[in-house]
């Protein structure tokens, strides 16, 4: 089963997504299915704020049996780390994956404040290319597992007053969400920690 979980900043989407994948995993354990539980992390960690975010999510996941795969780009490569066809994966999150695919800094430099360096080496991949690459990668990944919960971000409900590059990013993530929702069995929006079923609804009560 594939479940797409969407929500805004601080909506409680991560916690809900974890709950769902863990219940799928526990269910398969009860059926004596041999499998593993994976967390596929797509966030590039910048600075203290990023580190704090990672810590917060790690604490949420602690003791739940997740194996972590760090996959900032080329999400299909995480297939190599999986163990069984019956594995359960949580992919978090699409907004980071799409940003990492779209915007690359050729010289790996951790100091985000060094803007001069950033500008010189900043590369943007076209919207169409990113959509094609990410959807292909996700399809490959999803076809390799039994259960998947994908976390994505609702970034679509403010002004349209953005520069061309940001607008292309919004559009790319929107198209990818649309595609993922189509191939998902369930789509759930999380609002103030409460799941609201958009598609399906057998599992996510």
């Amino acid at each position: 089963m594939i479940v797409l979980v969407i929500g805004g900043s601080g909506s409680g989407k991560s916690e809900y997504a974890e709950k769902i994948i863990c219940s799928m995993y526990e269910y398969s354990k009860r059926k004596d299915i041999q499998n593993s539980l994976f967390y596929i992390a797509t966030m590039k960690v910048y600075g203290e704020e990023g580190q704090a975010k990672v810590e917060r999510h790690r604490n949420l996941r602690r003791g739940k049996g997740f194996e972590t795969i760090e996959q900032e780009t080329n999400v299909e490569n995480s297939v190599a780390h999986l163990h069984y066809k019956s594995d359960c994966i949580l992919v978090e999150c699409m907004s980071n994956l799409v940003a990492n695919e779209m915007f690359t800094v050729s010289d790996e430099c951790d100091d985000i404040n060094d803007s001069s360096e950033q500008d010189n080496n900043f590369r943007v991949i076209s919207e169409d290319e990113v959509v094609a690459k990410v959807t292909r990668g996700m399809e490959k990944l999803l076809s390799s597992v039994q259960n998947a919960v994908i976390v994505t971000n609702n970034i679509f409900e403010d002004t349209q007053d953005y520069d061309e590059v940001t607008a292309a990013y919004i559009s790319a993530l929107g198209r990818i969400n649309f595609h993922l929702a189509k191939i998902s069995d369930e789509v759930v929006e999380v609002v103030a920690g409460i799941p609201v079923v958009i598609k399906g609804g057998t599992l996510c009560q």
Partner: protein
Amino acid sequence: MILVIGGHSSGKMDFVKEYLNYNFEKDNVINDINVLAEEMFESGMDYETAANNIYARCRVKIVLTDEIGNGIVPMDASKRDFREWMGRLQIILAKKSDEVYRVICGMGQKIK
């Protein structure tokens, strides 16, 4: 407490007037706690304390709140923090509320 959440100008007030037991004379509606919450955030209060504080004041009321986390993450660090902080505050308020309505296009969906 009844919590009504939705984007800016999503029609929360109209929904409350039309569908919930709105009583202007008794002043049982708190329109937009975001301003109050932002003051609490700026004073350095954590979101649990702020949520308890708001709940203590508004427990018998219909409380309206803007959903602000559904856009592009702002460049400004403080704005970014406030969105996360506000979201977590709303999660606590939703947990404490007897009913939660989510409003889109003036239509309220009872989600709790």
